[in-house]
């Protein structure tokens, strides 16, 4: 981040002149709007912001942001973005990826960026389908899903992106969805503020190839009973009247209970800052899929040195120790002789 005071901008300033080319009704639109509207608040300049994506419908995102951007190749956005962030710790670097781009072909780069804690804000658009290639199942599609490549139903057990990120040592892990701009913006704001790799899963509706995948939890009626909002320091409760809650028993098992049955004090208090990710992981397993009460919000947010800072620290230390590089001296640093 530069020191200069950042000029006031509006959504329009962050919107590029390129026509948006998603299908009408696609959930990607609302995510784009949420981000474009949020940007003026974040304190970055457009020139210091870079969006990097892979390939997929979602990965067209950077074209629509009036910032620097790279629409790279399938699955490699976290690696490309790592290069940007390590080279230029002064930039705000965002990664836009999909469930196929980020978890299928790009799974390895994603988990390595997370463990390294590269300073990236990673938004994974999870529509549980391959949109751009017209409807094959993805690593987050449910077992039994009938798609073009699985006419008799998929037999792959899906990833839970939150669990995977936590297993990969992520320092910031959150989930939001395309139906709630406020929630998205709150989560994106937190992710952006996080130093290091921030991973956000966004449930996103693909109305062409997987319409209604999240209806069981995201329809207006379903939300109160099927979304479990996570708030740091707060007991984990949900339901129209907060009548439901989460507890952990002495054998390390998290369960949903009626608050009335166990008493308010027994309810687990969410602690996103806990050093070890066991609790966050347990919460990620409360729902086995987006068809039963599912936590949304920030699962984990802990501090750890970021990769870019550490690179910088070593550069500075080396200069302090060895002095700035002197090419002539380097060339003669081995044994030399005069002829």
């Amino acid at each position, binding site marked *: 981040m530069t020191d200069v005071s950042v000029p006031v901008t509006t959504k329009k300033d962050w919107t590029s002149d390129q026509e948006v080319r998603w299908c009408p009704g696609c959930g990607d639109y609302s995510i784009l709007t949420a981000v474009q509207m949020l940007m003026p608040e974040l304190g970055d300049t457009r020139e210091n912001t870079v969006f990097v994506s892979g390939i997929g419908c979602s990965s067209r995102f950077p074209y629509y942001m009036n910032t620097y951007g790279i629409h790279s190749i399938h699955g490699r956005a976290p690696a490309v973005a*790592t290069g940007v962030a390590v080279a230029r710790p002064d930039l705000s670097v965002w990664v836009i990826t999909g469930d196929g781009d980020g978890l299928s072909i790009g799974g390895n780069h994603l988990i390595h960026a997370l463990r390294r804690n590269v300073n990236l804000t990673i938004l994974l658009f999870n529509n549980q389908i391959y949109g751009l290639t017209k409807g094959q199942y993805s690593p987050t599609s449910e077992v039994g899903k009938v798609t073009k490549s699985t006419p008799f139903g998929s037999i792959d057990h899906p990833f839970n992106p939150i669990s995977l990120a936590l297993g990969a040592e992520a320092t910031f892990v959150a989930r939001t969805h395309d139906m709630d701009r406020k929630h998205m913006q709150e989560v994106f704001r937190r992710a952006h503020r996080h130093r290091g790799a921030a991973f956000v899963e966004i449930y996103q509706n693909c109305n062409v190839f997987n319409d209604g995948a999240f209806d069981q939890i995201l329809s207006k009626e379903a939300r109160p009973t099927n979304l479990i909002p996570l708030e740091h320091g707060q007991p984990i409760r949900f339901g129209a009247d907060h009548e439901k809650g989460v507890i952990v028993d002495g054998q390390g098992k998290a369960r949903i209970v009626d608050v009335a049955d166990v008493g308010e004090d027994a309810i687990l208090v969410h602690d996103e800052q806990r050093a070890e990710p066991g609790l966050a992981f347990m919460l990620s397993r409360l729902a086995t899929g987006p068809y039963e009460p599912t936590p949304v919000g920030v699962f984990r947010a802990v501090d750890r040195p970021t990769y870019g800072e550490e690179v910088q620290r070593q550069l500075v230390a080396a200069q302090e120790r060895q002095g700035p590089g002197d090419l002539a001296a380097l060339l003669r640093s081995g044994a030399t002789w005069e002829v």
Partner: protein
Amino acid sequence: MTDIAAPGHQSTELDRVVIRFAGDSGDGMQLTGDRFTSASAVFGNDLSTLPDYPAEIRAPAGTLAGVSAFQVHISDHDILTPGDSPSVLVAMNPAALKANLHDLLPGGTLIVNSDAFEERNLTKAGYAENPLGDGSLKAFTVYEVPMTSLTVEATKPTGAKPRDAERSKNFFALGVISWMYTRPTEPTLEWIQSKFGNNQTVAEANTLAFKAGYNFGETAELFESNYQVKPAALEPGLYTQISGNVAVAYGLIAAGQLSKLPVFLGSYPITPASDILHELSRHKNFGVRTLQAEDEIAGVSSAIGAAFAGHLAVTTTSGPGIDLKSEAIGLAVSLELPLLIIDIQRGGPSTGLPTKTEQADLLLALFGRHGEAPVPIVAAKTPAHCFEATIEAARIALKYRTPVFLLSDGYLANGAEPWKLPDVATLPDIAVPFADGPNHDRGDGTREFWPYLRDPETLARPWAIPGTPGLEHRIGGLEKADGTGNISYDPANHEHMVRLRQAKVDGIADDIAPVELDDPDGPGGAPVLVVGWGSTYGTIAAAVRRVRARGLKVAQAHLIHLQPFPPNLEDILGRYDKVLVPEMNLGQLAFVLRGRYLTNAQSINKVQGLPFKAAEIESAIVQLLESNP
């Protein structure tokens, strides 16, 4: 010219000698060879080296698979190769003898560690009889030295256990050879101190062993003579000894300085390229960033990100890594960003012979991407030349905003030669400006930035890096409209862009050095032209010398630029009826020359994980000279 160091009297003068140290992987032969080389370099000889070691970290002790060897050629005049065949072989055990004896020149000198020739080792090496006793070594001058026991004896003062003490026997061998070739002892003694200083027992043991070996040579009445190889009359200047990989690393650091850009290396370890990563990561005070990525794809992808962000971006690897990077290199072609891709070729296909040399990735570099995705290619010809070639590759990448291949190979990477240090002030300025403002008139007087508007001369697009206000832009791998850089599916634009990317690369031909023709009789003078590229340079030149020494005529041209070719190449090729292309592959450059120029280029190929011998190329030239046109 004496080919063999024949045994003689007191102190014999030689103009050159080729020595090979061979032992078990655990015996420290690379270290020994390296030390001998350094001492010779400092002494002022010209020299050239050829390390050869197994793929296993430590293959089973005593077996043929575990043999590690190091060949060094020292000379009082300038030389070009590590020598075809050693005239001196140091064999630390039976396996080392068996694996290397066939290369030793008839009448050559053989120094063996006789302690190691006991039954177990002989069996492991597959000897039914002890070769030291069965008369099979009659053709050579054999010196049996009980190096192990002498070393144990000599190092007793350190109090080390015999098992540990034994490990200094390579220094004993080094001592013997140092005496034999009258090397100064000081540099080696100092080096032992600095290298093993943090473990005084080891330092002392090695010192004692080295001295014991040296003294053994002097006092034991075994050797009839020792030898002198005078310093070579090299061009005056300050010299250092350098291997190809270190020269690449230095070249990268230099390119960073010369372009005033921070260097970013995204890489994944792989033999024989890893040492570039290792060397670079030691020089962070130059602002060099090295990222050991999770794989090759991430290595090159991160470099692309760094290039976008304004760094001199580099990725290093060997063949298998290039395979994996292909898709991302295609992206870099489409993005038109500067990027160095350094391929230290090794024996293929697949895992192949990972520690051996080969030059079979040329067609891969040229064509190994889907679609039409041309990339300039530069190839280094000697270990020291890697420095210059790296800067040249960086220059092209930066100026033309394009990925560029630099090809080296296992032989250059690990081989070493004396290098006359360049005057840093004379190195080229390869800096290019970043875009700093809008470059296109909207037509209504307002200006905007077009990321694909081109320099009419170089056809390079502007390099606008994040942090520059007003130049925000998005680029990607989809086809782009020339100029605006916006996604374009327009058929005519696609054809335009495909041809333009090719034209940009082709146009570099006007900006590179013409290929040098070495024909004493002027262009077309000799009946045969030998064209090479890469690490065969020294060997071809040596072969050409030999052919000329026979009174025959032959011309030589060695290509540094493989894409585009230098513009004078076609003309030169046209002047010779017979063109011979020696390659450590099945004829890749020959194929390209044929396809490009319809030259009837003929191949001589060697694909053995080993460099050519000058004699092999010599005889191919002579044969071609004698053949009917």
